[in-house]
């Protein structure tokens, strides 16, 4: 006989313009581990935040041990026995393990901390949960990453939680640490704690979960017992959506190799070999943390890396700083418009011309020829159809889509041959997306080469001539023509290397 620990009934969450969750139900039994899977944007994080009390559902009910509850804050959810361990660890590095576990509940005697009791309590929690190897007096900063994760779990359990949500707990762990985490999880099962385990790594789901629930586009797709399913079936459930007709690809003839990279390595990227052809749109797809942004930055010289060989049009070149890449006609446009791409507080024209100024455009002996600067900026402002009151407007006030167009104008004004586009459609509406897809197709048609990084797989498939999948800092597979389909690409992104020694 099973007893329900947590039940969600018909949960919907409406954000302005987006229905993030659409009538999602979930049931979690006592001592059960439920896997929760879905692509980026499937609604997993929204669901967790609703269970954890950070968001309020627009519709639906939450039942805790068969009694309806309403959480107005994360505190309320915590008090009712639900703890969440987020992907990003929330520990204070310069405090001890014990202090971190009891961070806002230090035992006090007349205003002084009762250290003896603190350490005893911490030891108790650690050892009863299979973490006896961690010294409660150790400084968190000195712990290995896996141990930090354990401390985070211990902290969650110190609230006497009956339900634990683990959000991508293995994203920064290596092989043995993952095994250790699994040991802790089985220990928690014995203690009748229920777990919701969120991960992109299906092998882990199959190893430790009892059931798995698949979300896609904010909807429940299926919930099945692990014993009755397999990876393939789960993957097709994750991706099996109708690709809406918002993508745009034009036939264009692809030329010779323009960029060839051999043996690119840094502390994250492992032995990357890559080639890009003239007039080609090369898609790179990988899940969060796969190293896709790092790869673009490494090529661009914005990240320290070792490269055996990088050839442009067959000639060996060196790129030590972005300016070297820019001078060779390679331009990178960052996904993070606010903190890495635009200069907020500055007018549109200044933002558009910054990059071109670095290569000597619009200047004589360092003096800026403002007339031609403004004219050329205006030219690209019009070409990209930026919608703003005028070109003097502060980029800060533009919508995401128009900010993105300014980013592209900034990149294109220099007439680069190779454009590295990092998530050019992140956080922008469908109309602006379509304009950007058309622009990408036009650029390729005009002989430019584009590397497109995106976390939206349909977008990659809809725009690319060729695709690389990435996982764990490596390119895992190349897909050409008919091979480009969601299922296969996703499979290669979920693939885990064998925890082998990195090259």
């Amino acid at each position, binding site marked *: 006989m099973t007893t329900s620990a947590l039940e969600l009934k018909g949960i919907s969450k409406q954000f302005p313009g987006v229905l993030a969750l659409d009538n999602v139900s979930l049931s979690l039994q006592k001592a059960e581990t439920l896997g929760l899977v879905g692509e980026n944007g499937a609604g997993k994080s929204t669901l967790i935040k609703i269970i954890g009390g950070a968001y309020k559902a627009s519709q639906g009910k939450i039942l805790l041990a068969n009694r309806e509850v309403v959480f107005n804050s994360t505190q309320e959810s915590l008090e009712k026995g639900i703890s969440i361990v987020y992907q990003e660890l929330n520990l204070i590095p310069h405090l001890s393990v014990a202090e971190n576990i009891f961070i806002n509940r230090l035992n006090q005697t007349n205003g002084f901390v009762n250290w003896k009791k603190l350490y005893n309590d911490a030891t108790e929690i650690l050892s009863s949960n299979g973490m006896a190897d961690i010294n409660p007096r150790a400084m968190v900063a000195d712990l290995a990453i896996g141990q930090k994760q354990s401390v985070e779990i211990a902290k969650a359990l110190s609230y006497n939680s009956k339900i634990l949500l683990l959000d991508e707990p293995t994203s920064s762990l290596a092989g043995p640490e993952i095994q250790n985490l699994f040991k802790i999880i089985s220990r928690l099962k014995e203690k009748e704690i229920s777990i919701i385990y969120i991960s992109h790594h299906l092998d882990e789901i199959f190893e430790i979960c009892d059931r798995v629930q698949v979300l896609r586009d904010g909807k429940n797709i299926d919930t099945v017992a692990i014993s009755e399913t397999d990876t393939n079936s789960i993957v097709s459930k994750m991706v099996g959506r109708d690709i809406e007709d918002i993508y745009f690809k034009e036939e264009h003839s692809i030329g010779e190799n323009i960029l060839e990279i051999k043996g690119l390595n840094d502390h994250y990227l492992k032995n990357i070999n890559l080639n890009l052809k003239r007039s080609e749109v090369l898609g790179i797809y990988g899940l969060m943390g796969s190293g896709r942004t790092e790869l673009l930055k490494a090529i661009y010289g914005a990240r320290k890396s070792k490269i055996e060989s990088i050839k442009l049009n067959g000639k060996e070149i060196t790129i030590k700083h972005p*300016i070297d890449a*820019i001078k060779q006609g390679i331009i990178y446009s*960052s996904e993070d418009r606010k903190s890495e791409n635009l200069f907020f507080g500055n007018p549109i024209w*200044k933002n558009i011309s*910054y990059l071109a100024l670095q290569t000597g455009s619009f200047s004589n002996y360092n003096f800026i020829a403002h007339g031609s600067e403004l004219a050329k900026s205006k030219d690209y402002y019009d070409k990209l159809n930026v919608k703003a009151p005028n070109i003097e407007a502060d980029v800060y006030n533009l919508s995401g889509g128009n900010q993105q167009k300014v980013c592209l104008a900034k990149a294109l004004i220099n007439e680069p041959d190779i454009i590295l586009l990092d998530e050019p459609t992140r956080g922008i509406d469908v109309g602006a997306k379509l304009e950007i897809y058309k622009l990408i197709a036009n650029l390729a048609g005009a002989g430019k080469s584009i590397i497109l990084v995106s976390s939206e797989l349909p977008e990659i498939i809809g725009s690319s001539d060729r695709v690389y999948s990435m996982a764990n800092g490596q390119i895992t597979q190349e897909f050409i023509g008919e091979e480009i389909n969601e299922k296969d690409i996703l499979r290669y992104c979920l693939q885990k290397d064998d925890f082998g020694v990195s090259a």
Partner: protein
Amino acid sequence: MTFIKSLFAKSEFIVFLGLLVVGAFFSFQSPVFLSSFNLQNIILQSSIMGIIAIGMTFVILTAGIDLSVGSVVALSGILMATMLNSGVNVALVLSINLVFGITIGIFHGFSITKMRMAPFIVTLATMAMARGLTMVVSDGRTLFAFPESFNYFGAGKVASIPVAIIIFLLYAITAEILLQKTVLGRNIYAVGSNIKAAALSGIRTNRILTFVYIASGVSCAIAGTILSGRLDAAMPTAATGAELDAIAAVIIGGASLFGGKGTIIGTVIGVLLIGVINNGMNLMNVPPFWQSFIKGAVIFLAVLIDSIKNSNEEAAI
């Protein structure tokens, strides 16, 4: 109408209005205030602080700070005095002094960019080290009696206009042209506005940062020359606290400590405002202790106005 609106949107204009109001107030309080002698005196007094503040503007535009300026001015004065007193040629002394200013800047730039130290701490350390060296070299005594040709920069006149004022104005104009009209200037604003985006736009941010600290060091060296020449003396305690006045002038002039915002014209007006307040209070015989209080209150007010204005901008969005 839009022209007037755009004027009021500029911090420089507001500070300029403040300057006029304060000036009008003092001219009613003291008949001497508006005399050409007194006005020239205000500008002369402001020129040394002005030159230091111009260097400081470069630094603050990149969201940095240079606390060492007062001590570096004093050390520059003492070093030159020592060389002059042992008979070194004036032209050579002036050149060595400029090299000294550049060296201080390179040291700061290197520590901040390559050693990744915080500007506040690095320049705080230099502030103490430079002041200490000043004492060591001078043995705590005031050095004086310099050649006429050296004193010319601090005390000389061209057609009844003090050379110091001419240097200050030329320096300000050059700095403003550099900031507003050149790629280098644009890049300084870019680094202060968003250093990551600047680097990804191909700007060599380390060079820009080093440049602004060199600009500050050179400004101190020039200020040191004028100060020693004007007094015909180099004191080890000279320019104590100058860093605070310089920072205040830059901020009053509309620059933001978070970088990316500010102009030389703003700084010049800020320096003049502080100069006028100092001068006016002296004419009115305000006791020195109160002078310090009032100056502090003015700085507070200026920053408050700017902060309120900026929060309105935020709210409008």
